[in-house]
């Protein structure tokens, strides 16, 4: 009866990810032929050489799509296979199918196309200048920033760049589609959004959603990259299956995946921040130029989160922030853990950094003075409730011995010329809920089998974040049975319908609540039966550790016996649960409302040591105090904080995503795109959860965990900058720049060296 723990399967090599599923008889492999330049007009496709390669080869083009050749949901700007103009390098033009992956790759390479190359734009500001946007710009305001600036003692202005980020989910994108009788298809997809994939396949194949079944098995990482962008690979596989009647597998290799799929949006932003003589923020303005890439994808939702997090954890009475979705000829940028918030938070932190230097204020004092508190309101009108900003910052200062640490670093820096240390503090405040209201719903289906074992299906996809583990704990606690009796199933559209992506950190909040509702329903039925069996009042009965309890006393009635009796009495042992996050509303016209169920708070302190000759550095220590509510599983939540921090630190200081001017990705392998490894991480990462901080707004008083801690990594950027400022730069080796310091993330060693040599100020 004891189910095998998922980790034990991983450790015996038995877990079957998509590419580990055995090939079936007659399976075909699909490899897309993609566009050779960033923008072009397709004039013709000649597949004759490919078809001559092998009898198993076939080549599908746009004209083979039986339904609508469209994947875009918010904006119809994303065809499945190009018919006419393409808008980025790596866009799918045709699909080659063959009996082996290598034959399919050879066939795709043999397809000849006739095309005209068109002029492309890759820079967000250049796109904005030519009026190339995905949707109109969006602005949020509060107070009257224009008049508030005139009252400011200090006003700082400048520019902030932040780079994109490749997901590098270790399992690449892919899908396997099986053709069923009657034109139906069954698909295993590496997706965070099985219902979204189902919808995309039904649309492109011209089928009803009931003709398409999608399953997401355990994913080898996703991080947002498989939220919207898993659909095209699944739709291509399904197209292949529909046209050939065979099972078709599409599975990208690393280079294909890096070249063809979207990443975190690069942003270029302008800020203006005004403060009074005491360092209180009076006014803030920011303009964000989001490089959205060639298609809409999730860009509007990502931009909205940037705007919602523009003020981060600070009180700003007068504010105007505007975001622009700039359409460029790069692969559509997409969801990545943090979803636009990191980009917005980085800008306000840069503005505060500039203000601290201009006003001569201590950076920590300045932040403390402006930290959000109970009674404040966010700039979109939602009241700040159950605010834990000050508690987490104070505890971080204690945990890091900040005052002593600062003094140690300063004295180290006066004693050393070629090695410098630096440190930075970063508070966070992250809103939880999808900002698109409709997405805040989820379902669950719970079966109790005759032997007492339990199966739980929800809309949540397990991708390493251990949402399955949390749902197992929730179900077991609700039913009062050992966790080992509960199995959480893979995610299937036929079990739980109309779900939304497992994203926005809401996986366990929404799906855990839905599972809880279903379990409570079944528990209620079983306790009614137990009351009749024991001649007791239902209200005084509970189920604990697999036995019915009455008051404080454990009865003889065991779970298995109760379930057995329920079945004999023809009591339904299955239940569907549903949850829609209550209390959410937002007026898009007024840009006012309460879009978030609650906020997550926390603070990080990071220290770094810099080699002042080479520009290289290492992170020494990190201290994180995080508001997790009441943790459902300590190990899971700790791992989420650590992992998100690692990705944030990678984004801030290491991961250098580069395209050339013609839209070709230069960092398209793991040998050219460096990401955090064991040696990159700080020698000591001390993570503490805020104590005594239950959250009445989420399942089992917990808080969402996935994304907020990614923001902690931004402290790494400022820790290095702090060390750089301690370097004696009175003898620059290159001609010094007269431009003001432009914040530019990631802080790579090259940029640090430029700073040291006086090229950057």
């Amino acid at each position, binding site marked *: 009866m004891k189910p095998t723990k998922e980790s034990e399967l991983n450790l015996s090599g038995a877990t079957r990810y998509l590419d580990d599923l055995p090939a079936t008889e007659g399976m075909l492999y699909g490899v897309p032929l993609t566009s050779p330049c960033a923008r072009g007009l397709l004039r013709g496709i000649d597949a004759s050489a490919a078809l001559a390669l092998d009898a198993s080869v076939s080549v599908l083009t746009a004209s083979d799509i039986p339904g609508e050749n469209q994947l875009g949901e918010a904006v119809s700007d994303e065809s499945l296979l190009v018919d006419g103009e393409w808008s980025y390098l790596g866009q799918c033009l045709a699909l080659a199918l063959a009996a082996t992956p290598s034959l399919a790759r050879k066939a795709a390479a043999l397809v000849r196309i006739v095309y005209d190359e068109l002029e492309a734009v890759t820079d967000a500001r250049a796109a904005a200048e030519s009026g190339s946007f995905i949707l109109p710009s969006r602005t949020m305001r509060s107070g009257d920033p224009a008049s508030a600036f005139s009252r400011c003692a200090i006003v700082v202005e400048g520019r902030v760049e932040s780079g994109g980020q490749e997901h590098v989910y270790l399992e690449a994108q892919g899908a396997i589609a099986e053709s069923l009788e009657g034109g139906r298809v069954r698909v295993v997809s590496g997706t965070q959004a099985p219902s979204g994939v189902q919808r995309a396949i039904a649309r492109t194949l011209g089928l009803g959603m009931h003709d398409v079944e999608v399953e997401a098995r355990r*994913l080898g990482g996703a991080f947002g990259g498989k939220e919207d962008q898993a659909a095209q690979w699944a739709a291509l596989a399904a197209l292949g299956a529909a046209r050939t009647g065979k099972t078709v597998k599409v599975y990208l290799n*690393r280079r294909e995946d890096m070249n063809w799929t979207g990443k975190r949006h690069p942003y270029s932003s302008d800020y203006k921040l005004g403060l009074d003589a005491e360092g209180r923020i009076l006014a803030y303005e920011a303009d964000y130029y989001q490089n959205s890439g060639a298609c809409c994808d999730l860009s509007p939702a990502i931009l909205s989160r940037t705007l919602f997090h523009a003020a981060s954890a600070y009180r700003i009475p007068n504010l105007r922030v505007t975001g622009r979705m700039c359409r460029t000829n790069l692969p559509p940028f997409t969801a990545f853990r943090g979803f636009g918030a990191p980009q917005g938070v980085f800008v306000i932190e840069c503005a505060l950094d500039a203000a601290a230097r201009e006003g001569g204020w201590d950076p920590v004092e300045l932040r403390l003075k402006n930290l959000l508190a109970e009674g404040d309101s966010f700039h979109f009108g939602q009241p700040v409730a159950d605010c834990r900003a000050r508690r987490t910052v104070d505890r971080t200062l204690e945990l890091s011995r900040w005052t002593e640490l600062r003094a140690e670093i300063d004295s180290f820096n006066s004693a050393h010329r070629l090695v410098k240390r630096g440190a930075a503090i970063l508070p966070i405040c992250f809103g939880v809920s999808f900002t698109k209201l409709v997405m805040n719903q989820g379902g669950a289906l719970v079966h109790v089998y005759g032997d007492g074992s339990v199966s739980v299906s929800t809309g949540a996809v397990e991708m390493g*974040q251990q949402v399955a583990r949390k749902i197992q704990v929730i179900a077991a606690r609700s039913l009062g049975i050992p966790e080992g009796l509960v199995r959480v199933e893979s995610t299937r559209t036929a079990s739980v319908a109309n779900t939304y992506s497992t994203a926005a950190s809401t996986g366990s909040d929404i799906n855990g609540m839905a599972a809880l509702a279903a379990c409570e329903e079944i528990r209620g039925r079983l306790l009614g039966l137990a009351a009749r069996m024991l001649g007791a009042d239902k209200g005084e009965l509970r189920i604990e550790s697999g036995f019915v309890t009455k008051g404080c006393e454990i009865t003889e009635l065991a779970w298995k016996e109760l379930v057995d009796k329920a079945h004999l009495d023809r009591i339904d042992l299955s239940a569907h649960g549903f949850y829609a996050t209550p209390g959410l509303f937002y007026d898009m016209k007024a840009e006012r409302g309460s879009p978030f169920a609650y906020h997550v708070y926390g603070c990080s302190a990071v220290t770094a040591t810099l080699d002042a000759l080479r520009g290289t550095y290492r992170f020494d220590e990190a201290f994180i105090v995080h508001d997790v509510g009441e943790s459902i599983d300590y*190990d899971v939540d700790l791992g989420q904080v*650590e*992992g998100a921090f*690692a990705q944030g630190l990678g984004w801030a200081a290491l991961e250098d995503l580069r395209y050339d001017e013609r839209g070709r990705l230069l960092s398209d392998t793991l040998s050219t795109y460096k990401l955090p490894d064991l040696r990159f991480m700080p020698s000591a990462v*001390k993570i503490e959860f805020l104590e005594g901080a239950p959250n009445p707004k989420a399942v089992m008083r917990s808080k969402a965990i996935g994304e907020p801690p990614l923001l902690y990594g931004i402290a790494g950027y400022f820790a290095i900058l702090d060390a750089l400022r301690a370097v004696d730069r009175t003898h620059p080796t290159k001609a010094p720049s007269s431009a003001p310091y432009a914040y530019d993330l990631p802080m790579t060693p090259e940029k640090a060296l430029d700073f040291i040599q006086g090229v950057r100020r």
Partner: protein
Amino acid sequence: MQKNEAASSRERGIRIRVNGQWRDFALGDDLSASTTLAYLLRERLGFTGLKVSCDEGACGACTVLEDGAAVLSCMVLAVEADGHDIQTIEGLPADDPVVEAFAEQSEPGFGTALQCGYCTPGFVMTARALLNANPSPTLAEVKEALGGNICRCGCYAGIARAVLNASAKIAARKAGAAAPGGRA
């Protein structure tokens, strides 16, 4: 006659010992000169524990043991492994100290040693090779040895801790075996 044919086919083939069992592969049908060890293990033998993720030796997910040392199986040609002893994660016993330590890893402040699990077989095999060569490494040596493995979920603290705990298990088992009445 038959014997001669068999001998000549052996000349055009390779033998690799995989997880304790010798396997013969003929050039042509089973493999070509450019077949990688990773492909052979995954696609021909079904040992799908190892993962091909970056396919260029930069992520460590395909790590297996060759004669006890870690090799990146996506960077080794199958023919180069001729005559060698290969071990994949499927070949490690459940009570292998590294497997046990990764499974048990749960410690305040360090967390688990795996999240999505995709990199796990590679980390386990790299750690196994390190402990084969150096049963009691320092934390710095662990970081150096495992520096070529990527865990994108980022549970590095738990991984490093698990390797040190595996090292302690090896020492404890040795001590237990050496002590009178100790278990072998």
